[in-house]
């Protein structure tokens, strides 16, 4: 992963809406007096939610003032964590896991599909302006590899065809059904289980 690029088109102003101010205050209250700065990560995430899934510089400044901490410290946090997007992303934001288990199960084929169907480069919004994709590290669903995350949902047990299908749905603006695409319930065995057969409630 390389250093995150900062978007060139930046909105002039950013402010939390009323609901998010409430939420932000609640987050700050989770921390003891004088340690309000600890809420910086939550606040950045709230800002990201409010601003179409990415954080503009104005929001970082706003949060720095909100928590009365130096701007550079907020900037440091925002550039450190991969969960914060510093450039605009599509309405459907595909995060393709390419860490070892997914890779072994064909994650790079999914990446190729994304390149073909969405955009040639990572972090580039598709021509219809609807979606963008990015390679990420392990999302913790290795047993359902390969998998992707679209916005807040996991799409598991994929292959090229299935992903193409998903992308086509999102192109039409529909949110595809999340979960396993081979009919598994969560991470249970596909058919009958093959281990611990003798134990009833295992």
């Amino acid at each position, binding site marked *: *992963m*390389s*250093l*995150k690029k900062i978007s060139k088109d930046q909105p002039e102003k950013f402010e939390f809406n009323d609901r998010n101010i409430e939420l932000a205050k609640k987050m700050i209250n989770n921390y003891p007096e004088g340690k309000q700065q600890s809420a910086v990560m939550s606040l950045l995430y709230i800002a990201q939610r409010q601003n179409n899934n990415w954080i503009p510089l104005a929001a970082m400044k706003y949060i720095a003032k909100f928590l009365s901490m*130096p*701007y*550079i*410290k907020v*900037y*440091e946090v925002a*550039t*450190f964590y991969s969960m914060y997007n510093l450039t605009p992303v599509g309405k459907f934001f595909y995060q393709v896991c390419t860490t070892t288990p997914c890779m072994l199960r064909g994650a790079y084929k999914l990446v190729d599909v994304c390149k073909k169907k969405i955009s040639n480069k990572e972090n580039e919004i598709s021509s219809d302006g609807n979606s963008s994709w990015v390679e990420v590290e392990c999302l913790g669903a290795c047993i359902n590899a390969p998998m992707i995350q679209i916005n807040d949902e996991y799409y598991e047990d994929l292959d090229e065809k299935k992903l193409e299908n998903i992308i086509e749905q999102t192109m039409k603006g529909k949110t595809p059904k999340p979960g396993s695409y081979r009919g598994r319930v969560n991470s249970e065995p596909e058919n009958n289980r093959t281990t611990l057969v003798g134990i009833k409630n295992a």
Partner: protein
Amino acid sequence: MTMLKLKVNDKDIEIEEGLTVLQACEQAGVEIPRFCYHEKLSIAGNCRMCLVEMEKSPKPIASCAMPAAEGMNIKTNTPLVEKARKGVMEFLLANHPLDCPVCDQGGECDLQDQSMYYGIDKSRFKENKRFVPEKYMGPLIKTQMTRCIHCTRCVRFATEVAGIPELGAIGRGEDMQITTYLEKAMESELSGNVIDLCPVGALTSKPYVFEARPWELKKTETIDVMDAVGSNIRVDTYGWEVKRVLPRINEEINEEWISDKTRYACDGLKSQRLDYPLKKINNEFKKISWKEAYENIAEKIKITSSDKIAGFIGDLTNMETMFVTKEFFEKTIKSKNLEARDDNTYINTEDRTNYLFNSQINGIEEADFILLIGANPRFEATILNARIRKNYVTNKTEIYSIGDVGDQTYPYEKHPADTKIIKEICENKSEISKKILVSKKPLVIIGNSALNSKSGKFIFENIKKFLIDNKKITDEWNPLNILPVNASSVGSYDLNLVNNEENLTLKKLQENVFEIVFLIGQDNLKFKKKNEFVVYIGSHGDNGAEIANIILPGATYTEQDGLFTNLEGKLQKAYKASFPPGEAKEDYKILNELSELLKRKKLFQNKDELTDNLLNYLDLNKKKIQSKNLSTVDYIDEKIIINPIDYYYSNVIARASKTMSECRSIKTDLKKTGTEG
């Protein structure tokens, strides 16, 4: 203090509690390599160079971050430690470019030195090296961020000591970069210190870029004259040219920092210099010989009555020159019109404690309440301000200021700048006076803006009375502090070069009473010249030389030995590092020789005689029995005007310096666009 017993390389040592393993090793005389650890900064523990072996620990430990404990057995000379150091070194060098031959840090680089001692001679890193784009950090700091090893010393310095949290480390892992907030110039007067802190060549001095190599420079340990603090510095010269100024450690004064003006004004030492005696003929300066110049002046003096001759001593003048001038005026021409102030600053020279920073700079750290009266320490004494900030950071001390003096790098409570509030304090009717009374070690700093106002006398005498009456001035602690702004100030007070309380000499000058005016390095006088015959003795062609009839070229602080008394009253000697240009002479010689022409006898036969006499005079002055009468002063209700300070242009050397002009224009640009907040 509990003492801890532990072993370092099988040697038993006993150390104070609260030290780290690294400090313990140092006390045992064992050197530990390090990059990120620095005594004056917080502990980061991220370079891993200081790994040592500790008994019962399966892995080597980072000694800079590990508190020393009773019974530890530390080993620094085992194969494990050696291997750990080599490993760390290899990682650090994996992405470090091999550009030492073109790097300004070469020859004084921690990474270079330590890789010679602890590193290995090859790398197993076959991949491409990382490239990091250069960052803009203003006109003083040159960056080459590819060389950065992420020790974060600069980030910690900016946040902790300088008080401008503008530097930060963005990204992570291999892509981590040190950068400033949106890549703008660092807004601090201490920014140059990050260059010394940087253990590699990532941050180097911009004005000094490719100027010289450290081993070809002659190093002279001397002191600084840009402000009254008297920071200890090392002047590096190549031939006669001063290439750079670096700080020298003096825990009592500047710790190991110096201000940007101290560090970078040195290029002003080679421009605008006066190198030949000059005479103004038909509004044009003509080169003349020293003999001619002296004769011209002597003729003029002979036909002028002595009370029509005045002398003004400037802000960078050393005490020898001041003493010669004093003798010259008292003995040779018998005039009393000699003055060292360029404004109406109220100074009570009856007692030495009346014009010193009595709490001492070290004492600032102990203070539990600080009151600034018309003082702007950030610009008047930057290094001293760093101490106030240090106190604030460690103790969260309450700081009050009478007068809004702008950002001081720490929060303080502002009170309007008028004399009413001083009156209230002295009558113990104000919140501030109550705070002073309850605190054990209060600190009152009276600045130039306050002493310079009409009520200067009222402010000083009443605050002093208030502190004496309430028994705040004791043998251990004197909270009364004056903040002089010039390097020569305290020296001139010690030599009694202050005529009257309200600078009558200056008043007379402005009324054009005098016929001959000697300006000894004095460029800051505000007066309209009429028919005065002005003799300027100094180093730079500035305001003083412009109005002069005869210019006698002198030397700067790096070109002559000279004594200076800093604001705490410490007598320090500046040493000669270079030579005055052209025919210019060391300052003290000039009036000495002029005196020889007038009286057929030199005032002093040589420098030693002069220094002996000077020191004698100072001793006598200290022993003088002081009258402790407190005079009563009438109260005037007025506003104290806080003098605006042109930090980068405060003296002739700074005004002649290109670097300082650049800093100044950047600062004014920032103000215009309003992007600083």
